[in-house]
């Protein structure tokens, strides 16, 4: 499909810039790593108590790093005034949005790839006990954050207090995603893992992502004019 091809091209443009400069991915990954270290100090030394908090730590790191990544990705467009060029290009606006969402997903996943092993290592949590569900839930969570985040980051492009407004808008809308992500992860990490619950929440995430992908596709044109 031409739309997906255009979207892939936009995404590859962003990712290629990232690969050359590594600006966003290094800062996001380091930020995620720092968060994990802070969490390690913030919670008591009792290993069992901390283990229950590990899913939350992972998802908080993903959430915060995702917001930073979204802000930076669109900041770059605004600083170089390339947003207008993207919108003037002879590709459907939707392809631009999807391309940005794909690129953001990859960046968020890069952060998760750094944070999850750090958590497993520093806090001795069996995060990778069930790698299949873990990978799936993190990927679905990253997609959800990227899709909804791209809509609002694009809309907030020229707004003055965009750095603080993006989390204000994004986090309440993302709460079901975080609840599903943490519930699924904690079902996998628990002392007596409950894979049924883990898969239930993964299905919930899948439906949530699909619904918001469709809604974003409908609404994107109206929200992002300039």
């Amino acid at each position, binding site marked *: 499909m031409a739309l997906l091809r255009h979207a892939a091209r936009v995404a590859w443009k962003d990712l290629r810039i990232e690969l050359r400069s590594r600006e966003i991915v290094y800062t996001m990954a380091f930020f995620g790593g720092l968060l994990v270290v802070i969490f390690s100090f913030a919670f008591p030394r009792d290993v069992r108590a901390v283990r229950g908090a590990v899913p939350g730590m992972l998802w908080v790191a993903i959430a915060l790093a995702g917001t930073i990544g979204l802000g930076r990705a669109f900041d770059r467009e605004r600083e170089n005034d390339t947003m207008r060029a993207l919108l003037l290009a002879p590709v459907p606006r939707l392809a631009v949005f999807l391309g940005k969402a794909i690129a953001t997903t990859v960046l968020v996943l890069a952060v998760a790839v750094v944070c999850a092993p750090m958590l497993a290592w520093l806090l001795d949590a069996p995060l990778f006990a069930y790698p299949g569900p873990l990978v799936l839930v993190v990927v679905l969570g990253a997609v959800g954050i990227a899709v909804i985040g791209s809509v609002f980051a694009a809309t907030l492009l020229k707004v*003055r207090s965009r750095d603080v407004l993006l989390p204000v808008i994004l986090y309440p809308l993302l709460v079901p995603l975080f609840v599903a992500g943490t519930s699924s992860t904690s079902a996998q990490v628990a002392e007596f893992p409950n894979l049924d619950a883990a898969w239930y929440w993964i299905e919930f995430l899948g439906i949530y992502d699909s619904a*918001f992908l469709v809604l974003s596709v409908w609404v994107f044109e109206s*929200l992002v004019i300039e």
Partner: protein
Amino acid sequence: MKKLAVPLLAVLAAIGLAVSVYLVFYDAPLEYSRNAELQLNGSSLFFNQKIVYFHVGHAFWLFGAVFVSGLSSIAFLKTRNPRWDDIASASTDVAVAFGAVVLFTGSVWAKAAWDVWWKWEPRLTMSLLLWLILVGYVLVRRFAGPSADRIASGMAIFGMVVVPFVYVMVGEGNSHPQAAPGLNPSEGVVGKISPGMRPALWLSVASFLCWYVALLISRVQSTRAERELRELRERGFDLGVLS
């Protein structure tokens, strides 16, 4: 006639509220506990349940206001007519106020009935998240500059879609064992209300409808006036008449 709408509705709401207060305290029966253990201990009557008449009245129109706001936002994005945006903004302001009342009365009821101020119980969680989305809408409108109406409309529409997910997420209508940690059977569901309480409940819901509409109309008038003033000032600046 239009000028009379707000005072008329406000008077209706006041009368309705007065009558429903009378009904609540003198006519509606006390709720009995269905919990055998509580009945054994002698505390089978719940006076604190009477807050439900105000709590549910506000909650009904909280959801109504959110619905109105979401639909107006869709109409605004489709037609770009700023009058729809006025309605959406006004309805959300009223929804924030109603939401605060719902959360506060819910919290007071929770302390009286369950001895905790807050519980991650389906209705409370859903109301809190919805309220946070609404407060975000108000903040965006205030601080996002000229394109605030567009961004806020997007938020309202996304908020409307998030609500069913929150509903499922907290386990209402969901029989999965892990789906709703800490779920407790809640009291005061409209369908389960005993017949003796229904007149008071429906009267209070109707009074709060009049109250909601009165607030909405006056808030829309104020939002519209602000917008027209802003547009006039911009035209004045453009024409060089103002400096």
